[in-house]
């Protein structure tokens, strides 16, 4: 953190990032090298209160004036929470007649093979508010049954009587021909101008009726509250003298304008984790790491994300409200551009216990902040990962939680001995080591399976660790994965908000348009992609009028007969008929990269076309190795458990703020800072670069 700078220059003014989380609202204010951070409690009923309070605090600390802000970027869990806690608007759904249950029937499967007592997530719109209207368009866009407009008009009194505020419209094949959906909107707005309406052909113009309908329902469900919140926030900020443009962080790791965010609020879910991935991308760019694995471990979960050539892996689908928090398929799908990451129930608060086979299980449930792990000394009795870390000597008792909380190692030891040690007949340290090893193994397995899904070789990557618990476990996780280099950036405690500042303004469009590659209609494809490009550019220009833009195009392709598509890059220009063989070659190269082997003689088909327009990212300040210098005398020493030697060893404890660029030392050692500790195990060396990042190598 730098000293407040008094000079005010509006041309290169301050940028403010605000991440409204479930518990805390994090703020980062930055101009050039100067950076201020603040953390205030979130005010769930009126989140703008905490935002305003945080802004006061950070402006005070920095001496910056409200009107000197150049831009503000918000990320919020409000949309996610409304979906999970079912606190959205009263929403109705209009579908093709005969298909109103598609959104509830879903995939007809069970997400857990052996659990005959499982519950499926309830749809956002109950059956009594789902209406079918006679109409039908087929896969080729032919009208098989004209829209019954009177049937639509007849719905208006029913919707009014039911107290409906927002309506989702999702008809079969509307991604091919949107006219029936658009006509329904006209008819409804005619009779009821203030009604909120979401069309599936606009929020998700993609094939697969269940996912598209579910996405439209989610958007309709959160739109009234998000729109109200954003309007109130804008008003309050204006009163306070903030006149800079407001941007919103999206799930895809890009920022968008307020207006666009209010139109498609479903794209605002999970913006916090996306911010973390953007931070990792920036660190990778600063350090010149082309193969980075972002590792974000907090109190409840751990997330890993692959970042190749400074671009986080992307996906088109996301699930919210999982009945079983980390079980795929137990939630409701939203089909939007998201940063692809796996999240598992492995955090500092994750609870350890024995299962019926006397195996140590860690998570997925967490002790949370209250009462928290046993070592918090607030009455928590569960043995957690943090307790294991405390017993193994990995935490600095003097600086635990910035010195605001006393670390009760005895309570941690007692909890581990009671919950695990007694039954296993091992001392508390062994139980602690088991907890630590298991949680690290769980994360390593999740990363390995994820790497396989994405066709990547995890050993080739550099781990970028941030979040309160990550630096404690990063070195061992890396070792399990065969990774030799770990980077722990500075300022990681407010990682997501920090990431917001690096995010580009962007818009990601996807449209389904089925084409067999051997008889591709290039003119039609070009027409579609050109229109997508125009729309996306217009949206991005709205937020970044003068910035230089870049565009990437891709297609979702598969062999005829397969069920999963893979993403293949397209040239950023109009396609020509002569491109078909090259497209096939690119598909086969990508297929072979993912699955080891292309298959000759089989036709290839394209299901959807995708395009992203974004502002070019600014050149990063590079992190460099500095002239090596010896480590300073450690201010303190502490007993740190060495898993290999199976005993405690005397370890140096360094204060991170005191370590200068070029400092290099060998483990066992600890590097302490206010929010976390980096564990440098025996056999590991640590080096500080010119940006103050720690590099651990084995």
């Amino acid at each position, binding site marked *: 953190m730098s000293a407040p700078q008094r000079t005010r220059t509006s041309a290169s003014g301050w940028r403010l990032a605000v991440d409204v989380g479930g518990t805390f609202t994090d703020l980062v204010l930055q101009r050039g090298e100067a950076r201020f951070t603040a953390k205030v409690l979130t005010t769930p009923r009126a989140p703008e209160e905490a935002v305003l309070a945080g802004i006061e605090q950070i402006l005070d600390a920095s001496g910056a004036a409200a009107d000197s802000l150049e831009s503000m970027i918000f990320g919020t869990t409000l949309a996610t929470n409304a979906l999970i806690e079912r606190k959205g608007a009263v929403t109705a759904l209009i579908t093709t007649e005969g298909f109103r249950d598609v959104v509830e029937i879903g995939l*007809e499967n*069970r997400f857990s093979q052996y659990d005959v007592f499982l519950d499926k997530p309830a749809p956002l719109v109950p059956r009594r508010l789902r209406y079918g209207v006679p109409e039908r368009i087929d896969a080729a866009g032919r009208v098989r049954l004209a829209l019954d407009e009177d049937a639509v008009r007849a719905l208006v009194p029913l919707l009014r009587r039911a107290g409906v505020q927002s309506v989702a419209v999702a008809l079969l094949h509307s991604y091919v021909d949107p006219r029936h959906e658009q006509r329904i909107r006209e008819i409804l707005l005619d009779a009821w101008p203030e009604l909120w309406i979401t069309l599936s052909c606009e929020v998700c113009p993609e094939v697969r009726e269940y996912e598209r309908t579910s996405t439209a329902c989610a958007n309709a469900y959160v739109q009234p509250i998000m729109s109200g919140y954003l309007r109130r926030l804008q008003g309050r900020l204006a009163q306070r003298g903030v006149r800079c443009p407001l941007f919103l962080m999206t799930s895809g790791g890009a920022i968008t304008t307020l207006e666009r965010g209010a139109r498609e609020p479903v794209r605002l879910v999970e913006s916090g984790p996306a911010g973390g991935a953007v931070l990792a991308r920036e660190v990778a760019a600063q350090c010149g790491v082309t193969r980075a694995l972002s590792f974000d471990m907090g109190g409840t979960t751990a997330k890993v994300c692959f970042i190749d050539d400074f671009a986080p892996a992307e996906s088109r689908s996301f699930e919210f409200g999982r009945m079983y928090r980390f079980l795929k398929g137990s939630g409701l799908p939203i089909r939007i551009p998201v940063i692809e990451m796996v999240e598992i129930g492995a955090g500092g608060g994750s609870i350890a216990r024995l299962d019926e086979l006397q195996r140590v299980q860690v998570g997925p449930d967490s002790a949370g902040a209250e009462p928290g792990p046993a070592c918090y000394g607030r009455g928590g009795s569960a043995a957690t990962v943090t307790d294991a870390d405390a017993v193994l000597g990995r935490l600095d008792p003097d600086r635990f939680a910035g010195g605001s909380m006393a670390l009760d190692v005895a309570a941690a030891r007692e909890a581990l001995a009671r919950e695990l040690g007694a039954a296993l007949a091992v001392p508390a340290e062994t139980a602690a080591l088991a907890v630590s090893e298991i949680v690290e193994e769980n994360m390593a397995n999740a990363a390995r399976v994820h790497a396989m899904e994405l066709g990547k070789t995890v050993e080739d990557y550099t781990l970028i660790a941030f979040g309160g618990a990550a630096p404690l476990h990063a070195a061992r996780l890396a070792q399990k994965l065969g990774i030799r280099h770990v980077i722990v950036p500075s300022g990681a405690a407010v990682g997501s908000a920090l990431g917001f500042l690096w995010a580009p303004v962007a818009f990601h469009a996807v449209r389904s348009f089925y084409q067999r590659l051997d008889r591709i209609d290039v003119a039609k494809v070009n027409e579609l992609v050109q229109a997508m490009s125009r729309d996306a550019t217009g949206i991005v220009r709205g937020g970044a009028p003068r910035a230089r833009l870049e565009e990437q195009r891709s297609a979702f392709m598969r062999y005829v007969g397969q069920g999963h598509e893979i993403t293949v890059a397209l040239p950023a220009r109009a396609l020509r008929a002569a491109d078909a063989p090259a497209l096939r070659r690119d598909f086969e190269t990508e297929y072979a990269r993912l699955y080891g082997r292309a298959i000759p003689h089989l036709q290839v088909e394209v299901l959807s076309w995708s395009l992203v327009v974004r502002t070019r990212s600014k050149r990063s300040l590079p992190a460099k190795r500095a002239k090596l210098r010896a480590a300073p005398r450690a201010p303190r020493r502490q007993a740190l458990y060495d898993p290999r030697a199976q005993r405690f060893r005397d370890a140096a404890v360094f204060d991170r703020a005191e370590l200068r660029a070029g400092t290099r030392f060998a483990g066992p050692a600890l590097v302490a800072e206010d929010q976390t500790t980096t564990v440098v195990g025996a056999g590991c060396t640590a080096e500080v670069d010119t940006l103050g990042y720690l590099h651990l190598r084995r």
Partner: protein
Amino acid sequence: MKRSALHAIQRQVMWNRLISVVEEQAQTLVRTAFGPPTREAGDLSAGVFLPNGDMVAQAVTGTPGHVNSMAEAVRQFLAAIPAAAMRAGDVYVTNDPWKGTGHLNDFTVVTPAFHRKRLVALFACTVHVVDIGGIGFGPDGHQVYHEGLYVPIMRLADRGSMNESLLAIVRANVREPIQVEGDLYALAACNEIGCRRLSAMLDEYGLRDIDELGADIIERSRRAMLAAIAAWPAGTYRNTLDTDGYERTVRLEARLTIAKSGIDIDFTGTSGVSAYGINVPKSYTDAYTSFGVRCIIGANIPNNAGSLSVVRVHAPEGSILNAPFPLAVAARSIIGQMLPDVVFGCLAQARPESVPAEGASSLWNVRLAGGQAFKAIDAAEVAGKTRFNIVSFNTGGTGARPGKDGLSVTSFPSGIRNVSMEILESISPVLFWRKEYRTDSGGAGRWRGGLGQVMEFENGEDAPMVLGATFDRIDNPARGTSGGLGGAPGRVRIASGRELSGKGRQVVPRGERLIVETPGGGGIGEPHARARELVRRDLDDGLISESAACALYGWTA
């Protein structure tokens, strides 16, 4: 003491790692396989075995049909090719229904894993291929010879070289040669991944093999399963369940004994074999029977030689649940998927509070074909029409659970997922006109059975199409328990009125629509005892009709 404590931790970490290795193996197959049942339903299996054939870990995939049938298959491979004869780079294969997983469409591939030149494990996987020749998929064959190409246990690769002769024979005998060959390559490749990961683990922990680790995993699982069984009241429980069969009703009769030494299920008394392809090889009977037990007892204990060894299944040879070669077996799942219900009926007598009622159970997959010659279709009617073959994977309702309603339109015991209607309509001329809950189909009860669905199909090209029916519970709907009523029976008909049969190929004439109504699940407890707010909710949502509410639930408005 310290040494062994660390050892115990390492063992557990390695156990987790082995499970992760087989999950990785399975995921690779899901993403590369061609058969819709594999990629949409996870109709595949992957596992790692000790060199003696004992299974150590198996991936949790979408189908119970491979739960221990694949484990048994590996023993058959070892009998045909002894461990001493195995070489690095070898890959073995079969689709023998009696040595593999029950029908010709399932290929099982086994790969020996060598570490520092020693055989340390076997990796096995199974996948359902899109086509295997013969008369095409369905129960209409009379002998296994009608059902397609039969590959006895042999080498798919010999010390690294693929068996080109076998691949040529496969390509020449199936309707989708490239896809089936692709699946065989995918099977070999996913085992290869398993071998590599295992070697890396052995290097990391400085181990020579997994014999001791595997023996420990198996023994601990066996003991845990015995402990779970011991919590149930010992005794013998009988149950009988009738299913529609093909040419006549098939009776499934079971005697389930819970004892200290495990659970024995004896199917003596079950009907004899059918003349059609609904017969079940024993390995498949074992799979669905033990799956039924494991849903209720020891659900969290991983599958391996230990946990599977204490659930023993006996079915007399010649019964439909132990159908011998060369009977037709392609559609073995119709009967096989009823077995968990048979088991539940036994276990409910021991502990009614822990067991669901019967459900639709057998899948209601709608197979439609068009644009090709078929008896009773005039060739002129299909001339110039699009040739297609599609399968829409569909389900009915599951049985009510004690304390909870059944799940509507949900697969059980299969883990299948449906295919998007928009995708099916993109690749064929079929049009869906309806797919929604079937009002009043859930068996009434204090806890209501899950609802079935109504679907309506048309050939959008104004031409006839052929339905390949594999439907059950038309004559024998799911039963309720403890005063709960049965679920609605399934129904298949032409929209203009004619009822169709639940089994076999039948024509949907040009200009007609096909209506399929899937069965509901059975209820639990007296309907009058159902909470009034739940009756009200079901009425508001149209899940039950007003007349049913009054007549069955004693509802007064």
